[in-house]
Each structure stands twice: as C-alpha cells, then as structure tokens.
C-alpha cells in the first residue's frame, strides 16, 4: 500500500480516536455511579455558549486587519449572517446567504 493511502488513513484514525475520547471522557470519569460534582455540572451548563463564541473567533483567526482587504469580506459577511438570522431564524438561509455573499466578495469585489 502506498503512503498516499496510509498517511491520510493514519491521520483520520488519530483524529477519530481523539474525537471519541472527548465524547467518552465524561462517562469514564463520572459514569461509575459517582455523583457528578456540582461544580462540573454547572460548568457543563455554562460553558457551551462560551466555547461557541471562541469557535467564532477561531474561524476568523486568519483575518488580518493590517493587510488589505482588512477583514472587510469577513466582517460584512458575519454581519449579514447575523442580520439574516435575527430576521428569519432560518439556518439554511443565514448560512447559505452568508457563504454565497462571502464567495462573491472574495472572488469578485475584494480581489
């Protein structure tokens, strides 16, 4: 078998195992009939919105404010996604509309 096959396979298996680990960990730690500590419980409640916010930042981490186009395509598109979503609350419209707009902006407007 060639390395073109084996290397991606190896990467996929590593990521799959690490992904499963994150999903299995709470059950391994607190699954044995042990009471989940109140502290951990409330973190389980409070952390998801914080993590999603961090992932938004993660998606935009490559944007450079100093170099043209100074993040304009990203910030315009994020704004439109937010407005569309607040207006209609339709995931497909918000994500699809925002992505199409972004593609037009980076391919035709801010070239």
């Amino acid at each position, binding site marked *: 078998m060639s390395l073109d096959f084996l290397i991606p396979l190896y990467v996929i298996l590593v990521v799959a195992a690490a*992904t499963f680990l994150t999903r299995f960990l709470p*059950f391994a730690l607190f699954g044995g009939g042990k009471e989940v500590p109140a502290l951990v419980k409330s973190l389980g409640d*409070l952390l998801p*919105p914080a*993590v999603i916010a961090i992932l938004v930042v993660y*998606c*935009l981490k490559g944007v450079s404010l100093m170099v043209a186009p100074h993040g304009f395509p990203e910030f315009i598109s994020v704004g439109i996604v937010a407005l569309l979503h607040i207006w209609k609350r339709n995931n497909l419209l918000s994500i699809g509309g925002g*992505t199409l707009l972004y*593609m037009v902006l980076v391919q035709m407007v801010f070239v």
Partner: protein
Amino acid sequence: MKKETLKYAFIQTLPVLFGYLFMGMAFGILLEKAGYNFIWAFFISLIIYAGSMQFVLIGMLAGSMGLLSMIILTLSVQSRHIFYGLSFIEKFKAMGKSGWYMVFSLTDETYSLLCGMNIPKELNQKQVFLTVAALDQSYWIIGCTLGAVIGSFIGFDTTGIDFAMTALFVVIFIEQWYSYQSHLPALVGTFCGVAALFIFGAGAFILPALIASVCLLLVFKSSIKQGENQEVCQ
C-alpha cells in the same frame, strides 16, 4: 421500532437534515478539492463525525503534523464535547450497548436536539434518542459523500466556501443568545477568545481561551441565573 418513533424523530431532526446536508456537502467539496474522493468522505464522516473538526482535518491529511500536535489540536477543537456528555451520563448509561453509540454520536446538533425535545409520554425515550442520533449521522454521511461526488464535477471557483463553517458558528451563537437567560457565558467566551488571539496568536490561542473562560465562569457562577433551557438537560 415503532413507526410513530421514526416519524417523531424525523420531524425533530428536520432542521439538522438541511444543516447537515448543506455543511456536509461543503465539506465534501473541499475534501475533493484537496485531492480525496468520495470514499474518503464516506469513511471520515462515518468514523470521525464532527463538523468543525473535519474541516480542520482537511489541512492535516497530508501528514505534516506530529502525532502529539494532532491529538492536542483535536482535543481542543472538540473539548466542548466533554461538557455535553455531562448532561446525559445517566440517560446514556441506562441505554446499555446503544449508549455507546449515543456517546460517539453526540455532536453539537444532536446535543441541542436531545436537550430541547419534549418527548410525548407514549413514546419510548431511549428509542427516540437512538433514532434521532442515527438519523443525524446518516444525514451527515450522505451530505459529505454527495459533496465529494459533486465536487469532482463542478468547474466553478469554490474559493470562500469554507466561510460556511464561520456562518454555522455565528448562527449557533445567536441561537444560544436567545435560549440562555444569561448572556454572560457568551460574552465571557467572546472576550477570552479575542484576548487570547491577540496574546497567543492564531496558532495557539484556543486552549488558553478555553481555560480562561472556565476560570471566569467559575468566578461569575453564583451571579448567573440558570435558565429553563439548561434545566431540560439535567
């Protein structure tokens, strides 16, 4: 399985159907553009099954990253799942062998569906859970595989299609903004994310941002009113 269970689960998963087909296709197209065909897309969506991580994975497939870096990157991108599971320990344990599949398949979207459902009393809750989880993954596998097939045909410029991932998280952010009584967790995450990005740079900010958020949330914990949305998950 009862027909009513499948019908109820299907209706509940409709928003995810469109979301997963769409995002899965975006992933499949990007994967195909990176040189991996639909068989890879099928395999990845079958055994990894994680939206954001699969997008990150495309850049890793060439194998230039070390083993430890790959593990740490995956753990940090997926770390939020550690906290999703907490809400369902007892329920999944009670499901026996199919509980293992529930643990594996607890994505952002499945988690939010399981949290939000008011299952009618006449239906078996365990069967509804399992059906919802399995339907969601099947949508994802179909989307990813189909995207890679389509990707091998389309000729137009797909530059910028990766913005779909950003848009997805913005949408989830707004949904959580509406459903949580307190906006403090979302604000804490935004602040820590931006601050850590400026301090640690694009390559290394996720873990410090997560740790700082946990610390700040623990500090503010007593002053945050926990709304109805969270109580459903207990």
